[in-house]
């Protein structure tokens, strides 16, 4: 291979004047984490709402949940981001559209909301499955004790369901982190974007991508380790995962 390796490149100043190339990548890493956390909050909130809707006895609620999930699952994430970023401002009344377009950090908010809603459909499916996996007796016992439907969910079903679906939620969170890279297409310069920028400035393709790869692996490692600890902490006694 006649590729000219130069691992020192990370410590050379980058042409944007914001420090070294390494600083560039680290700022990308920070933005990736920030976007992923923001998206994850949105995914959890909306996913929980829709997941609960899907398990309610009401037919209408089930239908809304079904339509929501199908809507967000059957379009590529990239297309969804384009819809939020390019199409939505045009369809709104002129003043609102203009306000949206001039929003500072528009790519960040679009990416957070776009990836968040995309992931919320997956969270909803997981949560609905988690609730459905609980023995029927739990809901019946709650009703027999005089709890309202809201109380049943708040005190009985959801605390159990969230713990059961913790492992799949971990991988959904990792998917959220990975999916923020798609936002490179709407101009979010996160980790992959910074690696790409570094490659264009310095022509050191493989060093830039190797560094980004290692950073993604690190995120993965930290999240998986953290979630294992959390899983052990909240494990339900009497279940296989429990003590």
């Amino acid at each position, binding site marked *: 291979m006649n590729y000219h390796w130069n691992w020192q490149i990370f410590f050379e100043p980058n042409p944007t004047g914001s420090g070294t190339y390494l600083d560039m990548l680290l700022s990308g890493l920070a933005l990736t984490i920030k976007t992923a956390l923001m998206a994850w909050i949105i995914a959890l909130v909306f996913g929980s709402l829709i997941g609960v809707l899907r398990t309610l006895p009401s037919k209408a609620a089930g239908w809304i949940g079904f339509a929501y999930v199908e809507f967000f699952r059957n379009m*590529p994430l*990239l297309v969804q981001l384009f819809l939020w970023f390019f199409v939505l401002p*045009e369809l709104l009344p002129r003043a609102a559209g203009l306000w949206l377009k001039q929003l500072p950090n528009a790519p960040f908010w679009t990416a957070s909301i776009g990836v968040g809603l995309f992931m919320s459909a997956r969270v909803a499916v997981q949560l609905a499955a988690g609730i459905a996996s609980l023995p029927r007796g739990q809901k019946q016992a709650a009703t027999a004790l005089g709890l309202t439907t809201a109380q049943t969910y708040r005190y009985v079903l959801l605390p159990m369901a969230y713990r059961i679906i913790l492992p799949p939620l971990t991988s959904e969170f990792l998917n959220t982190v990975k999916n923020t890279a798609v936002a490179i297409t709407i101009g979010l310069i996160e980790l992959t974007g910074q690696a790409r920028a570094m490659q264009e400035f310095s022509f050191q393709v493989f060093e830039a991508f190797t560094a980004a790869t290692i950073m993604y692996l690190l995120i993965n490692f930290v999240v998986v380790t953290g979630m294992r600890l959390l899983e052990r902490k909240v494990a339900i006694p009497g279940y296989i995962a429990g003590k």
Partner: protein
Amino acid sequence: MLGSFDFDVIRRSLPYLFVDGMTFTLTLTALSALGGLVFGTLIALMRLSGFKLLGRIAGLYVDFMRSLPLVLVIFWFYFLVPYIGQWLTGASRPIGVGAFASSLITFIMFEAAYFSEIMRAGIQSIPRGQPAAASALGLTYAQSMRYVVLPQAFRNMLPVLLTQTIVLFQDTSLVYVLSIPDFLGAASKVAQRDGRLVEMYLFAAAVYFTISCLASFGVRRLQARIAIVR
């Protein structure tokens, strides 16, 4: 607003969108799914082979690929494949591979990691007595895999494999980052040329939505049909 919605730009670009764009997308999807399945099955067999080193390598590969965003992997291969080509053929300079070949290699390697996990689950769902019976009948390991285990694993996992293929179909839109005219890339080119972002992106979204919906509906029906009564 919708009052100024220009349907004609969609009608005019239909041949380009479907003959060029959708053909690229569907070909890439089909070939990647096929290649991903073949390599994925090999990786799954490596992981279950009982050779510790082989299993470790396969496991590392799968974990590695699954930790990276597809966009980054697409960039990696886009720049790496010419060098690999040079290394394989002993040429004096990196080889130009072309957009289609580069994205095909990327998707095969990437999807192999995901397909291998599905096939592994499928193989592990086969009762232990089956390979035992096969070897009692005198079948070699290869024969037992070929005639007993893999056909059943494949059949059991067919709905999951097809669902993953629908995900793959949606993911192929990411070749957009290499400015390749797949279906979305073609729509985006027309959108930018004619200044018709709203129409083209809404239309592209509708097409992806319809195809994915129909396909997952088909998978659900298939699942009901081929389910083995136990």
